[in-house]
Structure formats: structure tokens, C-alpha cells
């Protein structure tokens, strides 16, 4: 039975490729999704890729993941710095959780320096560009497909 990983993307990430490409790069979200699916297939992972501009819709998907997924990659975008509701939803998920950002929020405006998500995830990956998606999926695969000790082995 393949393990399922939710890749959940927050507000404005649908504009990737057109919005401030000097920060976020020229790739579109569709291209990222295609690469994630290819990486998932390579590792035998079932990838559910989702984007929404709506906080409630993101929470609905995170709750769905509680029953159906073993891992979550969350790029909550600007909700990272505002959403206690997403913090709570993630806290309820017991699988492996990685917070992902394309840029490094700590290098940007002070209002991006606090993450409500970081304390309730296993790991944080930021500033590695869109390649970060593939990289964290590789780690997720190692985490989910092998035993627990693999991550630190």
C-alpha cells in the first residue's frame, strides 16, 4: 500500500512564475506539481497536490490528511505568519510534517520572521528555491518508506 503525502500550498502560490520572479523564480505551480508527481512516482508515493487562497479550504485539506495521509509538506505562504487555525490543524496530524518555503522568510521583512507553523512540524526547509519541493519529497520518501531510524541514520 503506497504511502500518501499531501503537499499543501497557501495563498498567492497560484501566481508563481508571474509574481516577483526574482524572489520566487520563473517556474509555475503546475510545473512544480508535475515535478512533485514525478518524484512521488519514483519513490512509490501517492502525492496529493493542493493550492488554495482560502484559509478554511487549507484547513479542510489538512483535516482530510489526518485520516488519509502519512506525511504533509506545508507551504502556507503568508498564512505561515498569521494562522493559528493552520497551527491547530497541523498539530492534530500525527504523521511526518515538513514546513517548506521557496524563499527564506527570515531574510525578508520582519513580519515574516515569526512562523506559527514551525513549532508544530518536524522540520523546516526554506530558501532552497522550488527545488526544495523535490528535495523534501525525497526525505519524506526515506522517512515513510523505511523505518523511523532512517531519517537520522
Amino acid at each position, binding site marked *: 500500500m503506497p504511502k500518501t503525502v499531501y503537499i499543501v500550498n497557501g495563498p498567492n502560490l497560484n501566481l508563481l512564475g508571474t509574481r516577483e520572479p526574482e524572489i520566487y523564480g520563473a517556474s509555475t505551480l503546475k510545473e512544480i506539481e508535475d515535478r512533485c508527481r514525478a518524484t512521488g512516482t519514483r519513490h512509490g508515493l501517492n502525492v496529493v497536490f493542493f493550492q488554495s487562497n482560502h484559509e478554511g479550504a487549507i484547513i479542510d485539506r489538512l483535516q482530510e490528511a489526518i485520516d488519509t495521509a502519512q506525511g504533509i509538506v506545508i507551504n502556507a505562504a503568508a498564512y505561515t505568519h498569521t494562522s493559528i487555525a493552520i497551527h491547530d490543524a497541523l498539530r492534530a496530524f500525527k504523521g511526518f510534517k515538513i514546513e517548506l518555503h521557496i524563499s527564506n522568510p*527570515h531574510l525578508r521583512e520582519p513580519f515574516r520572521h515569526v512562523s506559527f507553523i514551525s*513549532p*508544530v*512540524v518536524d522540520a523546516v*526547509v526554506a*530558501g*532552497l528555491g522550488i527545488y526544495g519541493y523535490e528535495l523534501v519529497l525525497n526525505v519524506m520518501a526515506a522517512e515513510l518508506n523505511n523505518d523511523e531510524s532512517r531519517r*537520522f541514520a
Partner: protein
Amino acid sequence: MTHKILILNGPGLADLGDDDDDNDRGLTLEKVRTECAGLCHSLGIELDFRQTDDQDEMVRWMTQDSEGYDGVIINPVGCSRAATVSLPAYRSAIGTAIRTIALLRKPVVEVHINNIFSRSAETTRPEHEPAGAMGLVCGLGVHGYLLGIRSIAHRFESDATH
């Protein structure tokens, strides 16, 4: 041309795996070195992997020695909540050193073995804001280093094609 990566480990990391900290799960620095060396070898990258307990030496490696390398990965330790050293001066010096490397447009990734943000649910602000570092990876154990290497290698590739 062979690319060269410098990996710098700060104070206390030689003792990794010595205590009963569950999060380290038996990981040793030698294991980190072996995994990093294996990946760099397979990617055709030259690796210089170092550790020091001397804060001044750490800063000196970052500001001076990094010049001869194409990418740098640092685990400064003292900048994290898991600090074995907590001198504000060290944190400030590390921040400045990271900025110095980043200004040279060299890829820099700051790696922490544990999630440095997880220690307190009440506050999420790290004591140290990783100013200047291109990338930040924490909580993935040895995989954090490997992600750092792969992301830097990826950057070498795109630099070569553009």
C-alpha cells in the same frame, strides 16, 4: 572544473550522540561526515568538512577560508535554541559572517540537526535570525546536510547552463 564545498560545524558538535537527547537518535559527527563525503563523491564535488569548539576559529573559517570554496554549509549551533554556547557576540559574528559569504553570491545553507523552532510552542521567534543565509534546513538530522549539498549542486548546474 571541480566545485568545492566547505562544511563547517560549530561548538559542541564533536560530542553529537554522546548525550541521551532523543532527537539526535545516535547520530554522530563521523556519521554525518561519512554521508556528506559519499554524496559529494557521487556528485563529483570536492568536500572540506570541519568542526571546531573554538568560536573565533568558526568565524574565521567562515569569513576567510570560505573564499576558496564555491558553496558553504554551516551548522553554527550557538545560534540555535539547542545552543551549547549562547554568547550574543558569537551569534552576531556568525550573522555577519554569513552575510559576508552571501555577498560574494556564493550559496550558503544553514543546517541544524533538530527543529530549532520546536523548543517552545509559545514563541516561534528564533533567538538568531539567520541573516544572509540563502537556505535554512532544520529538523532533518543528517538529511539536512545532504539537502544542503544537493541544493548547492543544483545551483552549480543551473549556473552552468545559464
